[in-house]
């Protein structure tokens, strides 16, 4: 069975380490914060200038001056810091964020990512996505393996305009955990009950399949 959005977030959360500074994109990445393993602490960086993003506020603590990069009202955890956008992207561009999780339209075997622009559709802008993928060493892309029409999003070459070039090494889809190296995908794990054949079929770029492909496990 393909993973649910929650399961995808849960699998990504297994990559967290105690003491990680993490930037989570909008959508599934945001859900990762709900699955931080017990006894582990991570700090969420929000690129509008907040390190140590906390829970949503209550009606009583709601504050227009306290938002996240998705423009939602939030709170700050104890030990948070708040700074300018230049400082925020100094952290991001300078590689100080330990893990970045974000969505995408397409990823290819060269580690390219397309996530912001569909030609002939209105372009709303890249926001901080280009900085995030260019600056981070450790990025996990979360997306469905294929479109609703069954078209693979794991390609030999991205067809859409890029967000970043050669910067993606890890992709979690609803079907598989895929790693990218030396111009090819490698199938590392599959979703419980999903066959290697289905993944192979839905992966357009060159995919290396090891002899044994374990199923993902969830605590």
């Amino acid at each position, binding site marked *: 069975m393909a993973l649910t959005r929650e399961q995808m977030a849960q699998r990504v959360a297994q990559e967290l380490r105690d003491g990680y500074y993490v930037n989570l994109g909008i959508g599934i990445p945001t859900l990762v914060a709900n699955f931080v393993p017990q006894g582990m602490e991570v700090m969420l960086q*929000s690129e509008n200038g*907040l390190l140590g993003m906390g829970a949503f506020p209550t009606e009583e603590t709601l504050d227009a001056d306290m938002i996240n990069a998705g423009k939602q009202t939030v709170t700050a955890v104890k030990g948070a810091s708040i700074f300018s956008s230049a400082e925020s992207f100094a952290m991001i561009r300078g590689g100080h964020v330990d893990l970045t999780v974000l969505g995408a339209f397409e990823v290819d075997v060269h580690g390219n990512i397309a996530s912001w622009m569909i030609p002939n559709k209105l372009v709303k802008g890249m926001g901080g996505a280009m900085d995030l993928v260019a600056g981070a060493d450790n990025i996990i892309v979360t997306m469905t393996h294929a479109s609703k029409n069954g078209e693979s999003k794991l390609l030999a070459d991205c067809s859409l305009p890029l967000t970043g070039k050669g910067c993606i090494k890890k992709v979690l889809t609803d079907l598989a955990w895929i790693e990218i190296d030396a111009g090819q995908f490698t199938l590392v794990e599959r979703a419980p009950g999903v066959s290697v054949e289905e993944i192979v079929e839905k992966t357009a770029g060159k995919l290396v399949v090891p002899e044994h492909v374990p199923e993902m496990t969830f605590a």
Partner: protein
Amino acid sequence: MAGFDKVVLSYDEAMAGLDDGMTVIAGGFGLCGIPENLIAEIKRRQTKGLTVVSNNCGVDGFGLGILLEDKQIRKMVASYVGENALFEKQLLNGELEVDLTPQGTLAEKMRAGGAGIPAFYTATGVGTPVAEGKETRTFDGKEFLLEESITGDFAIVKGWKADRYGNVMYRHTAQNFNPLAATAGKITVVEVEEIVEVGELEPSQIHTPGIYVDRVIQGTFEKRIEKVTVRS
């Protein structure tokens, strides 16, 4: 002390000198920390043909969005402009030009503009549409883009507290692009919630030193929230 007293008493005075065709750099992220009354004053003045540099362009009917209503903006430099139907329409009509700039590059362009750095290299945007027409260069085996800095005729900034000398502090995440914009204007105007006595702000805690600020005005703010999100 008259020379350092930056306080003006009317919005008219605050935006005096703004002319058609000028470049305005605005602080704010979404609707958070935007100089809402300075924007309203630009609308009142009906200044046209503006280039506006800001992370976003407000929403329909609030923030920078109101400058679209009378087509005052000719060109928008922003990282994300998706909140706004009128923007979309004018863009498709060809009435509005847009230069989409990655958020971190935009922040650094403002900072560099204020700091006398005409250009810098960044990995952001290499191999993407942002790189079109820009020079790339390799440092240490990695490819980078040359990005030029931004300065404006006016910078419009929203602060929390300021003193008469123009020293400013920002509140929470309403800081965002504001201190960067403040450095990059030929004339920098800051509107704040409160004007405090000179000496009240701790010197090491001032976010924007008064040297960057030309005018300070005290306003009242709606502080509209784009996405109210609460936990139950």
